[in-house]
Structure formats: C-alpha cells, structure tokens
C-alpha cells in the first residue's frame, strides 16, 4: 500500500496540479486561436502579470491587516482576474487591433505577440527585479497529511492547501466555461465564430464584441492559471515563460480552437510529465526479494531523467503534430 500512496503523491496529485495549470492556460490560447486565428505567444506574460497583480493585491490586503481563512492569493483572485482581463483588452487595442485593421497576416500577429511578450516581460523585470517572491511570506502554507495507516500504508497522502483549492477552482471554472459556451448567447456566438468567422459575421454576430469577450475570458483564465502556479511554487518574472511550450502543446494536442480539447490536452501533458519522471523502483522494490541477484532493480528506474521533464511535452507535441496534426478533438487544420 505504501507504494500505491507514493504513486498517488508523486503522479496523481502532481500530475493533476500541473495539468490544471496547463489546461487553464491552454484554454485561453485555444480561444484566441479559434477566434483571432493566430498563435498568441504573449499568453505566458498574461499569466505572469496576472500572478503579479494578485501578489500586489495580496500584499495590500496583508498591509491592511485583513486575515482570511483561505490563502489570500485565492481571495484576491477575482479582483486580479478583472484587472488582467482589462490588461488583455488593452494589449489587444494597443498592439493587435491596428494590425488586424490593416489586414495583417496571422504570422505578423504572431511576431507582434512576441514583441508584446518581450515588452511585458521587460516591464515586470523592471518593476520587480529578477528575484522570486512567495505568497506565503506572511501566512503559512497549510499541508494536509491524510493518514492511510488503516489501508496498511506507512506514508501519509500529502496535499497542500493551495493544491487542493487549485483543483477545486479549476473544476468550477471549467464547469462555468462549459455553461457559458453552451448556454449563453455570447458563448454560442464565440463557438460559431471559431467554426467559421465569415459565416458568423454574415449571420449578424457582433464580431467586435466576440473578440472582446475572448480577450476577457483568456485574460481572466490566464490570471487564474498564473496565480495558482505562483501559489504552488514561487512567483518569478519568468514564471510562465518557461512553460509556454507545454501549454501550446496542450492546446495543439487537444486540437487548436477546441476549448474542451485544451482541458483534456492540459491534463494529458501534466500527467505524462509526472509519469515520465516517476521512479518506478519505488513501486517495484518488493520484486527485489523475488528476483535473482543479477536482475536486481537499479536505484532509479524512471522513463526519463528528471532534468528532461519539460522535453516530454515537446516530444508529445512533435509526435501529435506528425501523427494527427489537428489534435485529438479535431481542431483547426491548415
């Protein structure tokens, strides 16, 4: 049983946490791709800046002496999401809308998004330096240890409070997104525009509004993902820049333009990464008693060494692009 609990701690929980963050980021990328038809690289900076907005708000709350039962990062999240949504709208108005008006190609928009990435990253580093920050400087990070002795395990199940909240918040927002996309007029308009932009326009859908809503949803979800990542690890200026490729991989694996695909892709990549670096010897060690001397298991038996963890996502990405370029959920094709 100890082995099973170890597996749950190392793979199931770690994979779910990583998968939630990838999924929330990938939804934004996939929506922007579906509606505006370009790969938005600056999404990583929306995540990082969102996390910094939340961090500033949490610091303000702490300085006002407000103490909350759950981590302050989660309490200020809705406000930070609103600020991030406005920030995303501002970026669109300032940098992408003029190019769109000129009828620029998607490639030009992609390069412009890289320019935006660099500018936002430069600004974040300018204001916050290159160091790292923690949401838990003034409050403690609660760790739940669920005793599993009744199942015969010597190790407890370990999950931190932010991780638990993160999974709950992700599930809620995914449900909300689902309801928004399927039930509301605007959500249906968004899906229609993602399927066929020209057809949507001639059938009287207000495309300007749809574009705005896309940025609002993408910015808010990016802020959520970034803040939760910062709550789980630490907050630093290259927080999301380092994981933008796994997030893109999640969006592509799920099929670009498909919101549900992005969620599936995010979870898939998250679990794949934690499974690939999982040390199987820990689980298979009882076999050593049965196996002969020459076939003893080595100390580490991971599929991929830990330092190559991020490459797992890239390999999945490349394989998917080769075998099924439109992704699992049949996203946009060329």
């Amino acid at each position, binding site marked *: 049983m100890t082995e099973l609990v170890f597996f749950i701690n190392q793979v199931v929980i770690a994979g779910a946490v990583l998968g939630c963050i990838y999924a929330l980021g990938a939804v934004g990328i996939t929506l922007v791709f579906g509606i505006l038809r*370009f*790969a938005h690289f600056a999404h990583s900076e929306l995540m990082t800046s969102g996390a910094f907005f939340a961090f500033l708000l949490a610091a303000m709350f702490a300085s006002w002496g407000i103490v909350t039962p759950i981590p302050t990062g989660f309490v200020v999240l809705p406000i930070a999401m609103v600020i991030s949504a406005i920030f995303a709208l501002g970026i669109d108005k300032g*940098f992408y809308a*003029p*190019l769109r008006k*000129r009828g*620029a190609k*998607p*490639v*030009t928009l*992609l*390069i*412009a998004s*890289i*320019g*935006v*990435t*660099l*500018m*936002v*990253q*430069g*600004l974040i*580093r*300018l204001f916050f*330096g*290159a160091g790292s920050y923690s949401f838990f400087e003034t409050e403690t990070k609660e760790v739940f240890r669920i005793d599993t002795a009744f199942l015969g395990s010597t190790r407890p199940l370990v999950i931190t409070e932010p991780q638990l909240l993160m999974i709950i918040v992700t599930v809620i927002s995914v449900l909300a997104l689902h309801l928004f996309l399927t039930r509301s007029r605007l959500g249906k308009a968004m899906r229609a525009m993602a399927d066929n932009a020209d057809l949507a326009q001639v059938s009287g859908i207000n495309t300007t509004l749809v574009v705005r809503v896309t940025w609002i949803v993408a910015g808010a979800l990016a802020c959520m993902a970034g803040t939760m990542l910062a709550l789980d690890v630490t907050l630093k200026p290259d927080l999301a820049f380092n994981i933008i*490729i796994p997030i*893109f*991989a999640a969006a*592509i694996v799920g099929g670009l333009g498909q919101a549900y695909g992005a969620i599936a892709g995010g979870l898939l990549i998250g679990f794949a990464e934690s499974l690939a670096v999982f040390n199987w010897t820990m689980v298979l060690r009882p076999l050593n008693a049965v196996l002969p001397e020459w076939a003893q298991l080595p100390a580490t038996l991971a599929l991929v*060494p830990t*330092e*190559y963890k*991020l*490459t797992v*996502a*890239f*390999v999945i*990405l*490349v394989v998917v*692009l*080769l075998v099924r*370029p439109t992704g699992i959920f049949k996203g946009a*094709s*060329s």
Partner: protein
Amino acid sequence: MIQRSLTLFAGLFVLILVVGWLMGLPFTSSRLVEATAYSLIALGLNIQWGYGGLFNFGIMGFLMLGGFAVTFISYPINPQFWGSDGPWMLGRALIAFAAGALLVIGAQQSHRVGITGRWKAVVTVLAWFVAYCVYRSQIDPAAAYIEANAGFVGGLGAHPVLGWLFGGVLAAVIAFIVGKIALGLRTDYLAIATIGISEIIRALIKNMDWLTRGTLTVSPIPWPTPLPQDYQATGSDLFSSLLLARGGFLLLAIAVLVLAIWLISRAYSGPWGRMMRSIRDNHIAAASMGKNVTARQLEIFVFGSVLIGIGGAMLVSFTQIFDPSSYQPINHTFLIWVMIIVGGAGNNWGAVFGAVLIWLIWVISEPLSKAVFEMVSYWSTNAGWGAIPEIESRSAQMRVFVLGLVITIALRFAPKGLIPEAVKRDT
C-alpha cells in the same frame, strides 16, 4: 531604393562611430565581431523566412549546435578520456544506437511481412520503446563512467575554422532531420514545433555532461587568429594588442560573411531564386508547375541552418567559452527575428543592416538606460523621493523591453522592414 539603402548604411556607420567614440575602441571592436556573426545568422534566417517563407523559431537550437561543434573540434584533446575505457563504452552505446535504429526501421517496414494497420502501429511503438531502453542501458553507465573518470570527452584539437565548418555541417544534418519531421506543417504549427525542437536540443546539450560538460562550461576555446596575449608576447601594449587581435578576427569574420553574401546573391538572382520566390508566394501554383515544393523547402531550411550554425560557432569561438546555460530564447531566437523584421525580410542587405543595428541597440541600451536611471534617481533623490534601487539589474532588463518596443513599432509603421525586398518586374 538604392539611395535609401545607402543613406541607412551611412547612418549605421555614423552610429558605429558614435558608439566607438562613447564606449572606446576595444568595446566597439568586440561588438562589431559579434555583429558580423549575427549578420551571418540573420542571413541564415533570411534564407529560411525571407526566401522560403519558413517559420523557424528554433534558431537557438542551431546556434547551440554550432557552438558545441566548434568546442568539440577545436578544444584540446583530453588524454584522460582516450586512455580510459570511455571510448570503448561509447562505442558500445553507438552499436546499441545503431541496433535500435535498425529495429525501428524494421518495424516501419513490417508491412512487408504482412503486419498492417493497427498491429503495425503497435509494433512500431514497441520498437521505439525497446530501442530507447537498449540505448539507455548502454549510454547511462558510459556517461556516468566518463563523468567520474575523465570529466568529459574533450575536443579534437583541430583548427577553429574547421570547427566553424563542422558547425555548419552539424546544423545541416539536424536541420535535415527537423525539416523531414516538421516541414509541411502550417506556419504557426511549424513555429511551435521548431521552438519545441530547439528546447529539446538545449536540454540535451545542457545535460549531456559527458559530451558537452553541460553547465560546467568549456573554456578557453582557441581562436582562429592570434590572441591578444600573442601580440603582447611580441611586445605590443595592452590596448593595441586588443585592437590587433580583434581586428584580425573581425577581418576573418567579414571574409566569411562576404563569401556567404556573394554565394547567396548569385544563387538568388538566378533561376533557383526565381523558383524559391514562386514557391514562397504561391506554393500551390508552384507545385502545379511541377516544382517539388517539399524538397525545395527542405533544401532552403538546410541552407539557412548552415549559416546559423556557422554563426553560432563563430560567436562561441570569439567569446572563448561554451556555456549552455547562457542560451536563452529571448537573446538567441527572438533577437534574430527582430533583426530580420526591422532590417527587411527577403533582402540580404536588409538582414545585414538589421543585424548590426539591432545588435548595437541591444548592447548600448543597457549603459544608456543605466545613465537615464541614474539621472532620474538623482532627480528623485533631490526631490526627496529617494533613489531607484538596483539600477544595475534593472537597466540590464530594460533592453528586453526596448527589443519588444522595437518589434511592435516596426510591425506597425514599417511592416516590410527598413530595407524591404526589391520586387523585380521584367518589362
């Protein structure tokens, strides 16, 4: 058109003179050598993007390959490795690799013995897995042994110019494989795939300590031309020895650049260039005229990568240190893209102009923003608001912002670049 280019190049020359006057000759000469290497890299990207319309966002990977190549070729031989069991163990790993490759190829041909459809897919996946395990079982102990006994494999002790050539060859080989995999994807997929591949290359080079020494870095890598120390040994003073040595390196680098431009321009103004332009502008029409679009795109991807590899090798041999952790997508992929966008894609002179200009902006924006910060800090201290903290690190970050600003302004106001592609119309 020509007048505009000449004016811009004259302006660039004045800028170089100003930088030389402000920052001193040794600084400027170093930056010019780097600018030459970056011009070569920008030309490589210009071939891929400007001529072929291929969206290569994995420049960093090819730069690292070039850097590794010159390290491997020109670093002195490591007798500790060659005297140990290391070569023998590596040989076995190579045999395991070959066996794995054969297995995979065999699985891909399994339809010949009647295994088709789903079963073939299963066999292929299984073959990949077995091949991976077989290779890992040989390379892991070999790597551990070499790292423990000899540090790393070391170099071959050959001339650095050979290393530059090998950088080009190595980049070409990898580009061929990457191209086989990724070309044919639509533009943004290609961008993301190439970023992914360059990150894989970075992870490999950074962690294959037995081959590249990873984060421990390799230095000093020999120069192709005499070093400042050599001039000092013959009695030159510090200043003139620096200038002489860097001047020599600069001449060699410019010679390589001129040769590259000459070759490319000849090819591009001929029938080959016409074919490439037609493929870029309308690949469907070009294909229907009987051009093999995929093969030609692969060709152009490989050609561009050769120049990028050579440029990467040149940069490493100039700085004399190979440090895999110093490679960042911002400095080594996006910077090159900014050079091309600002300079003008599809125009060789635009690429060279953009490379030199952006490199100068990139290096002087740090001291410049430091000066601005110090001025503002002086005012704010006088006004009683206190000084700006950490001016040094903040001004180092400013250049990332400046780069982003330059790219967005260029796209908005000069989308074709400062020296745009010259569209020839035969009358």
